[in-house]
């Protein structure tokens, strides 16, 4: 095991993995969500069903995949379905417990932008676009958002609403007819933001070990509300960190 100091990214990934300790199934893209899910399966939840957008259900990758369609996912999955089947029969009907999503921008109601920075017709930065996110966020049992914690990402106002989290607050999802609970956590490298049960506005509910509440507030692009009791997240244990580093080194 590497003896390097714990990085903020590692704390973020382990926190996300713990969140999946009791899920039955998780829908993941590549990057940290995928690493977190593979880690959760290895450490806490051997029966966790990993579902990738490419159609692989129940994948058991040994390596962290570069793409959502790597051959290893196909070879190790319980079943592989077509893209229409994936969305129509598995995601939209709410069969997947947790959907993990990233985004370029997140607002205070956990709505997401992955389409464009700047004006749609004359963009400053053209981002990849929606992919599966809108229907994943609408359909999955709950959504965990994994993003960087800075004022460029956590913004006052999205340039484009690609994916509805809690819309304009309490009741918005119900009015739109969405099935799942929506975003239940935004996990950053500083801590965790969770929606207020009443208003659905994100509040800082915990910080990683060594992070000050004020740092998290300062790195947020809106006036971030803070829970009455902000918990300090248990730092990754020796075993968790060893497992994560070993996984990343494969």
């Amino acid at each position: 095991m590497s003896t390097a100091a714990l990085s903020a990214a590692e704390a973020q990934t382990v926190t996300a993995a713990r969140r999946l300790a009791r899920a039955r199934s998780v829908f993941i893209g590549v990057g940290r969500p995928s690493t977190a899910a593979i880690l959760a399966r290895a450490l806490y939840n051997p029966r966790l069903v990993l579902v990738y957008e490419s159609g692989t259900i129940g994948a058991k990758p040994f390596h962290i995949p570069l793409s959502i369609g790597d051959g290893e996912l196909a070879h190790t999955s319980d079943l592989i379905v077509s893209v229409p089947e994936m969305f129509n029969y598995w995601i939209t009907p709410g069969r997947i417990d947790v959907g993990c999503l990233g985004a370029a921008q997140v607002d205070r109601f956990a709505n997401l932008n992955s389409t464009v920075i700047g004006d749609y017709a004359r963009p400053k930065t053209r981002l990849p676009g929606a992919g599966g996110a809108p229907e994943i966020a609408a359909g999955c049992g709950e959504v965990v958002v994994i993003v960087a914690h800075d004022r460029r990402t956590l913004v006052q106002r999205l340039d484009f609403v690609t994916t509805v989290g809690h819309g304009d607050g309490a009741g918005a999802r119900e009015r739109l007819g969405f099935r799942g609970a929506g975003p239940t956590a935004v996990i950053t490298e500083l801590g965790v933001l969770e929606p207020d049960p009443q208003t659905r506005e994100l509040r800082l509910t915990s910080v990683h070990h060594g992070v000050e509440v004020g740092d998290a507030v300062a790195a947020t692009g809106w006036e971030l509300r803070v829970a009455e009791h902000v918990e300090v997240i248990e730092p990754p244990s020796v075993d968790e960190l060893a497992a994560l580093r070993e996984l990343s080194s494969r």
Partner: protein
Amino acid sequence: MRGGARIRRLFGGRACVLIANMAEIVPLREAVAELVRDGDAVALEGFTHLIPFAAGHELIRQGRSELELIRMTPDILYDQLIGVGACRRLVFSYGGNPGVGSLHRFRDAIENGWPRAIEIEEHSHAGMANRYAAGAAHLPCGLLRGYRGTDLVAHTRVAFIQCPFTGEELAVVPALAPDVTVIHAQEADRDGNVQLWGIPGVQKEAVLAADRVLVTVERIVDRIEPRPGGVLIPGWVIDAVALAPGGSQPSYSLDITERDNDFYMRWDAISRDRDAFTSWIDTHVRGKTAVA
């Protein structure tokens, strides 16, 4: 009407073939020349797996232009087609380099109009998948729960209807009906029946939605042995099959080639710079000839 009848017309062949329940097996260059025309709406599909790079490169070599390019995930292949200016309009749902980051040619075209401005129409994956499925059913539109509450609604082609039984508002997306669909598969037999396996993506729908169909394959076999997870497409819904071993690289053909993840990572640097990109295309695409 696809398969036999059309292909006889397109490629000539025996004088009087009334029954021709098979796809013609032809060289890739000839297949692309006959089946894809300037201005066509073309779908080259393959979801991460089985992306038809060889056929796409042949489009570049033959200088096809003014194409409406349709694809859920443009990936490196459409980055290349956009970068050479072959694309007039792009229909898509996720324009990134999977696991790496941006597609720089895609971004340069949209952000800066280089080498030309392109029109875009974007959807969610669920929307695109249902558009293909509606196309395969020859329905004018498909129904799904989606799009509601997003800014996509104001920027794409989607409508809403009420369910006549429950009153729930549902999204309706227009069917996709490409002039040509191109896919890559592991194998075909001599009648042009095709089998692919592994991640099947939306290829079957894209084939059945199209007016003309080209399938490139890793190998021609005497007899197809159905596989677990095999998707079988009969030759009579295909116009032409072309042999193109390695034709999905740097994507892959499960059990035959491996995904070239290094190339996907290297593409970031190659594509970031206009000159580096053009030079790469000149050397690695224009400077080569079609396989087979």
